[in-house]
């Protein structure tokens, strides 16, 4: 069976194929990534907030060394998954320093998140590529889907996309994550983005995406992880097939929206490279071609993500069994 065939819907057979199990309103239950990496994130974030309020960015930055070391030392499972990723991205066996650099970059983006979400970007050097292409796309009035990944900092990207933009930017994300961002904004930065989150997993999430695009706005989503039970295809990524979601590409096709890739790459302390790349022109593939088009786009997305992973290997923030090797 291919990933794209539609399994019979009656009788309902959850997880029958692994591609489409029952989905829409399920609580995030047992997918390793929905719980493991975020627990660490939560603790780190709380600590970071405390430090930043009292001591400022520089102290926070210095403390990242012990903090990153602590989280690296205390998460053996994530370490194993990170090693599997680094081996592929670096093309060699990763050492302790490689692991530390990954954890350090991750911790840095969390520290920066606090500043970037609250719009305090003045001390940051953010290099931007492709902004003109994004503006040209938006000028056509059909909105734009921005596909990112758990790679680098989405907040850096948002800081750029949002600055002086005449259109709204909404982000599609898991409800638990949405709540976390909301709490962060409330705790530190005021209600700047509080309304601009569309929680995944509700029946009308995609309707809301549709409406934002119809108003000419941007919708950002991370297209490298699958929400519970979403349609996926196994697509070669860093030389081995990984389950990648087709949902974002099906959505883009259905709405006929233009699509750009968006990466906020961490390059060092308070240094980011934000890049927007044209990915797909507006227009709907015919009904019959929709699945094939989604698959083709997922493969192109994987290829671009792979290139970024090789060029900026320590920006990869998926600390779960990405290739599902343990299954």
């Amino acid at each position, binding site marked *: 069976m291919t990933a794209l065939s539609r399994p019979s*819907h009656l009788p309902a057979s959850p997880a029958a194929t692994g591609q489409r199990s029952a989905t829409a309103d399920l609580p995030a239950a047992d997918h390793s990534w929905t719980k493991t990496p975020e627990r660490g994130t939560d603790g780190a974030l709380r600590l970071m907030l405390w430090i930043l309020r009292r001591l400022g960015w520089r102290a926070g930055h210095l403390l990242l060394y012990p903090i990153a070391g602590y989280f690296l030392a205390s998460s053996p499972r994530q370490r194993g998954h990170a090693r599997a990723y680094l081996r592929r991205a670096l093309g060699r066996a990763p050492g302790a320093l490689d692991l530390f650099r990954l954890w350090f970059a991750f911790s840095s983006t969390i520290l920066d998140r606090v500043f970037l979400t609250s719009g305090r970007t003045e001390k940051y050097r953010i290099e931007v590529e492709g902004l003109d292409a994004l503006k040209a796309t938006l000028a056509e009035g059909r909105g734009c889907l921005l596909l990112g990944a758990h790679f680098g900092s989405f907040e850096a990207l948002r800081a750029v996309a949002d600055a002086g933009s005449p259109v709204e930017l909404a982000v599609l994300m898991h409800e638990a994550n949405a709540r976390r961002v909301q709490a962060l904004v409330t705790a530190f930065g005021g209600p700047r983005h509080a309304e601009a989150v569309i929680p995944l997993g*509700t029946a009308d999430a995609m*309707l809301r995406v549709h409406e934002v695009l119809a108003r000419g706005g941007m919708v950002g989503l991370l297209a490298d992880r699958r929400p519970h039970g979403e349609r996926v295809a196994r697509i070669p990524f860093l030389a081995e097939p990984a389950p990648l979601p087709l949902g974002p590409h*099906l959505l883009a096709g259905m709405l006929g929206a233009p699509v750009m890739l968006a990466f906020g790459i961490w390059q060092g302390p308070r240094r980011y490279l934000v890049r927007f790349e044209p990915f797909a022109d507006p227009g709907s593939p015919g009904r019959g071609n929709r699945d094939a088009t989604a698959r083709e786009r997922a493969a192109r997305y994987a290829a671009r993500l792979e290139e970024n992973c090789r060029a900026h290997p320590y920006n990869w923030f998926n600390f779960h069994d990405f290739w599902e090797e343990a299954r």
Partner: protein
Amino acid sequence: MSTDIETPTALLPGEMEVASLIVSALSLETRPEDIPPDEPLFGAGLGLDSIDALELALAISKAYGVQLRSDDERNHRIFSSLRTLTAHIEKHRAR
């Protein structure tokens, strides 16, 4: 996990029409008359996801002129089963 469809509840004509629309819009392998009118369409029941919801909303707007809006607080109920969806369409249809 359910196995056989035993005696399915007979659908009302309006429900049958909406069920046919669901099946054709989403290319389901289910027959319209086999959709249980009172069971959830999304999640556990028919197993539709939020992308299906969008596709269905677009099809409903085309066929009946009924716009499903995301800010409608009743969405959860409207989408909860074939019966509630049909009732909503019949109340608001423009054609």
